């Protein structure tokens, strides 16, 4: 009994303990705020500093520029040439191109596997599929990048007869491998949380199991699947190491998925180390980081809102 006895209560200790614990909880909140503040702080000269704006104003980063008198106006990202060129358009295009290829690859596989796991697989198979996805999710992105660089690129080059090994397709597929677990997890979660009463109702109306899935479970879980796709897209846009290693990193404006691409994230990773602190180039790289932050923040907020609403609706229906 001795051990179970509590020491006399100390109000001060209770108070301090609670404060200590609550302070920690605000660190996550503070962190989000600080990330926003400090990444933006370094990007502010784009809006205020005349010297920076001379080379990289919002206008110059967006529209075609005539860099030498008489030459054709174009979009160009060449921050280290005699006339530094900071057009974000090639990078934007590259980012979107790689992310779209990744989604085209990851969506059918991720959603398909999620449907199979939640609707068709028996328990033993499901307990095999889930760890497989967890293993895929656990592979560090630098390893996926390495695989795309050493193996996948050669494979694609031989199969498709390409001139360039590293291109948007190669990076997109590798990126897709990182996205599959996100799409799978969110979609599968949405489908398994569809209440049994809905399934029972459809069965009572004469639907066989796969008809229940197709006509009842899938429509009910659609917002969840959409959220998985949205969150996956956010990951594809922000992912760095895979595209840095597998895309070839040439900032080209083209629609072909067999050309090399340079994405926002890879640009930061490749260039920040060599950049002069506080220079125009440095400022523009932080500006790109701020864009990435805002974009993924909105994507995540949107995905979470869809999921919260879905959860509410599904739970509401059961009661």
């Amino acid at each position, binding site marked *: 009994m001795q051990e179970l006895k509590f020491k006399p209560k100390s109000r001060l200790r209770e108070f301090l303990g609670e404060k200590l*614990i609550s302070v920690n909880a605000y660190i*996550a909140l503070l962190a989000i705020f600080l990330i926003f503040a400090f990444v933006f702080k370094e990007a502010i000269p784009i809006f205020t500093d005349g010297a920076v704006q001379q080379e990289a104003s919002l206008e110059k980063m967006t529209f075609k520029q005539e860099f030498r008198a008489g030459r054709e106006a174009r979009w160009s990202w060449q921050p280290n040439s005699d006339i530094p060129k900071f057009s974000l358009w090639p990078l934007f295009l590259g980012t979107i191109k790689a992310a779209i290829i990744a989604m085209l690859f990851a969506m059918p*596989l991720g959603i398909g596997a999620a*449907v*199979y796991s939640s609707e068709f697989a028996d328990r033993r198979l499901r307990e095999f599929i889930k760890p497989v996805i967890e293993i895929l999710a656990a592979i560090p992105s630098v390893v996926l990048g390495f695989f795309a660089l050493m193996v996948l690129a050669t494979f694609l080059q031989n199969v498709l007869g390409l001139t360039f090994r590293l291109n948007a397709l190669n990076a997109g597929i590798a990126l897709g491998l990182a996205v599959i677990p996100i799409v799978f997890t969110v979609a599968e979660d949405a489908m398994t949380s569809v209440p049994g009463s809905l399934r029972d109702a459809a069965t009572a109306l004469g639907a066989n199991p796969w008809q229940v899935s197709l006509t009842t479970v899938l429509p009910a879980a659609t917002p969840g699947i959409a959220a998985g796709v949205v969150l996956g897209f956010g990951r594809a846009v922000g992912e760095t190491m895979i595209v840095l290693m597998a895309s070839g990193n040439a900032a080209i404006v083209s629609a072909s998925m067999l050309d090399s691409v340079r994405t926002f994230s890879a640009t930061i990773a490749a260039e920040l180390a060599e950049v002069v602190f506080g220079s125009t180039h440095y400022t523009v790289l932080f500006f790109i980081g701020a864009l990435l932050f805002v974009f993924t923040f909105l994507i995540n*907020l949107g995905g*979470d809102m869809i999921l919260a609403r879905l959860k509410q609706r599904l739970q509401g229906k059961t009661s």
Partner: protein
Amino acid sequence: MITETQDRPVEKKELVELQFRPKTSGTIPRGLTLLAVVIIVVILAVIMGNIIWGGIGTVSWKFLTHPPEQGMEAGGIFPAIFGTVALVFLMVIAVVPIGVLTAIYLHEYTSPTSKMTRFIRVAINNLAGVPSIVFGLFGLGFFIGFIGGGLDSLFYSGEGPVWGQPAIIWASLTLALLTLPVVIVSTEEALRTIPPELREASYALGGTKLQTIWRIVIPQAMPGVLTGSILAVSRGAGEVAPIMFTGAAYYLPYLPGKLNDQFMELGYHIYVMATQSPDVEATKPLLYGTVLVLLALTFALNSIAIVIRSRMRKNRVGT
């Protein structure tokens, strides 16, 4: 009610809409979704097989315990292993207490519907979705520029940068922020498994809230804390983008001995060898060996976490 429906003639249109086509067996959707699973499994098997096949011949005791030689074309990876371990060790010291206390605050002190709790949750979710390269920018701007630079100008003015430069402490703090959501989520999951009766029993014996948390709740939640820490280590050990500018070095002739030293790291070592090596064929065996070591480390950590977690879930079913 019953008679009413019986009296009302059922319109034919209504019936048609509810009717399911008979005798469609569902082979096609079943087959297609199974195909998605098979493709994912095959891809994973190819990646794992390729890396194990390519790396197993290189990994030896000497490889693990010796530094790189001849411009990283021979020798081992000991400094990178040491750097990775030191990095995640410092990260764990920072992230586990903060993450656990945050989870305790969210689960034990506040109601889940309060506005502040929801704010904190949104912040945690978003923190998990911020691209890792943005964490790198933040680490550079906040830890190195603001905190490190601030310390230098306060205490070391005129000595050149002491803290305001890339260092292992800043890299590990950046990673700690990145892995904070992992620890919070898995601790919270554990807190949910603790039956409220245990807390009530403690109160009935005269325990205060703080005493209950310290002596009942935290010991019970230890498996979750452990799972979260292991998953955080696994994630942290694989991330490269956040440490590229905050402390990782291409090559160092010495091991880090102080908090403000730079360090070598497995993931960064892979990136450097794969992309910056003048002779890729010569470094290929070493590269594969390094990837295998990183992958083995990651998977070992993840498997341990999965085992602990599944045990924890079984316990919950038991109570």
